[in-house]
């Protein structure tokens, strides 16, 4: 009864013959359920889960690497659709992966519930009756004590068992007395925590899954870009992308605002190992709630900003050169900082400017920005350092139809030149535009002028001549805390399940005339390499305590030595 309940194909269960299901639906259902909740099924499902997870590391996944998936389709136009049909770009939400883990968890629940019931009862039950022949158990010690006469021996036997009872209790054993006419015994069991740990572990796995599943519904992540000096407000309008869970109310986001005051970073200077590597990124923000004072905040890598239950992460950064465009009449038709996407470690960056109105034609510019420009032998530029040492901005110019009137949203980072003519750069026959901060040059065909604004015109160098921007990721994760709680619980359960020994111990005192035969025996329930040592240790300590307390009656713990009688 007190043994933990195990599926029938557990290594410790008695082998039962494979019972054919009784005919009928119920019989088959019961048989199916037994199969599903057997150890073998759990094992096979675990191995299947491991195998099924692997393809997701071989093929890019939409969830982790959407660009990789797009690239994969470009590189393998024939194979990709086939893989897509097999859900290989969404392995972890695919029907087959889901089927495996759902079956596994059904099996888990079906396994854990009966075991929990059983364990609950077992914790209230008495340790089992003392076996008749303790000598047959794997761990066994015995000792013969001699006394003056029968009465002394009887009293000593009773004392010995009482002492054993106390000591076992103190060592965390649950105990029961089983006394016969000649033999007194105490039966003890410990290590219920092992089974408790096992159940906590398995149940916590269910907890993790539920937390991920349910919590995910209340979770959202959104991305945005903030340029130095600008303010971003936590509403749907201001996000560049937003992925809400099922239960997220998009109109009820916390109304706070973030202003990027400054983005700072440092560079490893030339001549040192790792020269040019950037680090110590810090976005200094001002945070503002309605009807409250503004506060300062900062976001660093590994240190998100916590605000109103959201976490704000620093995902990237770049330069946002401020461009001003005037038409042939000298009127400003465009003037704002334009975020450029970094292309390499030295921050060669690409960006696009679109001017739909105000010029004679719609104009699009595709630009490259080099924070520290160097001319290559073929006349092209490259950036050799990430910081603003010798910034240079170049543009190709297109005129025609930008294609933004068609209602199809277009990325701010790409230009579709299919309906446009190239006026400068590339094969157009006209040099591309080249500017340093503060420069103004003419647009081709007398369209107007373009200025690369210098943000710090009075400074000696170019250090602050171009604004920077940060890309931030804003998350609300309702699940994370719960997942962590269950993960920690699972680990604690695992420690108990693997390292708490579960064992039974018996101490029996058999009186024979004026001698008392003391026996100690232990039985492991499950993995218990230390059992023999534990029995030995208990016997030693128990005998020592008897010797200490033996105020009356002679004793001799060496079996076979001269009897101490008259």
């Amino acid at each position, binding site marked *: 009864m007190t043994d933990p309940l195990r599926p029938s194909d557990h290594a410790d269960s008695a082998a039962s013959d494979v019972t054919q299901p009784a005919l009928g639906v119920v019989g088959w259902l019961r048989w199916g359920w037994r199969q599903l909740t057997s*150890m073998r099924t759990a094992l096979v499902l*675990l*191995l299947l889960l491991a195998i099924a997870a*692997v393809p997701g590391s071989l093929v890019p996944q939409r969830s982790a690497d959407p660009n990789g998936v797009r690239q994969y389709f470009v590189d393998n136009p024939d194979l990709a659709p086939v893989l897509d049909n097999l859900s290989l770009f969404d392995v972890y939400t695919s029907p087959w992966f889901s089927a495996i883990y759902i079956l596994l968890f059904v099996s888990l629940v079906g396994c854990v519930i009966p075991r929990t019931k059983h364990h609950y009862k077992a914790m209230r039950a008495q340790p089992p009756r003392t076996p008749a022949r303790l000598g047959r158990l794997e761990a066994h010690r015995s000792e013969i004590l001699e006394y003056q006469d029968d009465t002394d021996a009887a009293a000593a036997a009773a004392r010995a068992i009482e002492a054993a009872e106390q000591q076992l209790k103190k060592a965390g054993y649950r105990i029961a007395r089983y006394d016969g006419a000649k033999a007194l015994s105490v039966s003890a069991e410990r290590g219920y925590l092992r089974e408790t740990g096992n159940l906590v572990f398995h149940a916590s796995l269910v907890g993790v899954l539920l937390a991920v599943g349910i919590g995910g519904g209340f979770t959202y*992540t959104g991305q945005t870009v903030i340029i130095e000096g600008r303010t971003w407000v936590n509403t749907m309008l201001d996000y560049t992308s937003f992925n809400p869970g099922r239960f997220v109310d998009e109109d009820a986001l916390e109304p706070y605002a973030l202003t990027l005051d400054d983005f700072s970073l440092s560079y490893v200077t030339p001549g040192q190992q790792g020269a040019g590597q950037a680090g110590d990124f810090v976005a200094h923000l001002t945070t503002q709630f309605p009807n409250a004072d503004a506060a300062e905040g900062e976001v*660093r*890598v590994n240190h998100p900003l916590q605000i109103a239950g959201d976490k704000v992460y620093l995902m990237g950064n770049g330069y946002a050169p401020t461009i001003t465009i005037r038409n042939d009449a000298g009127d400003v038709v465009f003037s704002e900082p334009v975020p450029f996407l970094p292309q390499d470690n030295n921050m060669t960056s690409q960006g696009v400017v679109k001017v739909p109105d105000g010029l004679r034609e719609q104009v699009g510019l595709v630009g490259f920005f080099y924070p520290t420009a160097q001319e290559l032998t073929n006349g092209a530029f490259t950036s050799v350092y990430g910081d603003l040492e010798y910034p240079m901005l170049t543009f190709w110019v297109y005129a025609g139809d930008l294609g933004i009137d068609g209602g199809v949203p277009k990325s701010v980072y790409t230009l579709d030149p299919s309906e446009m003519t190239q006026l400068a750069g590339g094969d157009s026959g006209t040099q591309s535009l080249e500017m340093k901060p503060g420069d103004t040059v003419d647009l081709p065909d007398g369209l107007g002028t373009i200025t690369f604004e210098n943000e710090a015109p009075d400074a000696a160098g170019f250090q602050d001549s171009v604004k920077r921007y940060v890309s931030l990721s804003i998350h609300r994760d309702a699940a994370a805390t719960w997942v962590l709680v269950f993960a*920690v619980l699972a680990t604690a359960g*695992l420690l108990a399940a693997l390292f708490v020994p579960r064992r039974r111990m018996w101490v029996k005192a058999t009186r024979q005339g004026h001698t008392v035969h003391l026996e100690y025996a232990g039985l492991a329930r499950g993995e218990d390499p230390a059992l023999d040592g534990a029995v030995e240790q208990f016997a030693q300590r128990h005998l020592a305590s008897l010797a200490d307390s033996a105020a009356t009656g002679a004793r001799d713990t060496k079996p076979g030595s001269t009897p101490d009688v008259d």
Partner: protein
Amino acid sequence: MPDASPLTLDDVSVLLVWTAIAIYALAFIAYAVDLARRGAVAVDAKDAAAKDAAARTARERELVAAGGGGAGSRTGIIEQMRAQETASEEALNAPVGKRARLVWARIGTSLTVLGFLFHLGGDVTRGIAAGRVPWSNMYEFALTGTLLIIAVYLGVLFRYDLRFLGTFITGLVVVLLGGTAIWFYTDIVPLMDPLKSVWLVIHVFVASLATALFALAFGLSVLQLMQARRETKIAALAKAEAAASGTAKTGPGFLKTLPSADALESLAYRFAILGFIFWTFTLIAGSIWANDAWGRYWGFDTKEVWTFVIWVLYAGYIHARATRGWRGARSAWLSIIGFTAVIFNFTIVNMFFKGLHAYSGLS
């Protein structure tokens, strides 16, 4: 060489590491000689035992007069194996002072300790030269990871006489560390921002520790399989009358000096569950770090996938040990597959798979 600049601390570190590799290689040879000699010693012992047994059988024949010969040798060979195993299990658990005087194993262990000291020196100087914990790119991770494998092995030696795993451990470390020093060496560069985290210290260190324990479990599981094969062969021999001749080959000689397959299995299991606990911790610590660095605790990034796969494989191994029909050889294979996945994760996944964990420092 025109560049006459003095040795930097990192150069010293590299020298120490190469010295360590050379010493480990010598330790490997010593351990290999030990295994070979164990086989020879066991054969001698067996010959003596066989002579004994033959004499006994002869006497029994005289006494019993008829037909006892087959039965005598049958029990003889099995008994002999059991006796060897009991002796080996005692040897396995013998306290340090009371161990068998295996000269070559002693040389192997002494060399391993010496190699470890150089290795430790190389690791520490690298850390000092870099001004941070020396496990921030693939080279350093391998440096510290292999150091921990040796440390765990030497530590375990205080409790169990596992010197028969010496060839495997030193061989593994020579290959990993040598490969690392040749192919993965990277100059010291400042840490990238995402790596500046206490979780780097914890997550990576615990992962290395788990790897070391899995390595021991792996070695034991391999030996377990070899031993189990030998045991089956002996049992078959005992059944066949051929046993009387006693010349059939049952496997490498050193197996005779090792504990039984069962004992090897339960030892492997003990290391594997310790490793599993550390691996669980690696998984959790990694998730906490990912949550800080990338804004999500789990994203099925390639490295995360493999960490998960390994975790599930070892969970499978633990289950297998408790499932009827899976104990023994099958579970041993799972332990072997699990460790293969660990090594795969560290080498192939780091080098060739694309993902966010792009910190190998290789390009």
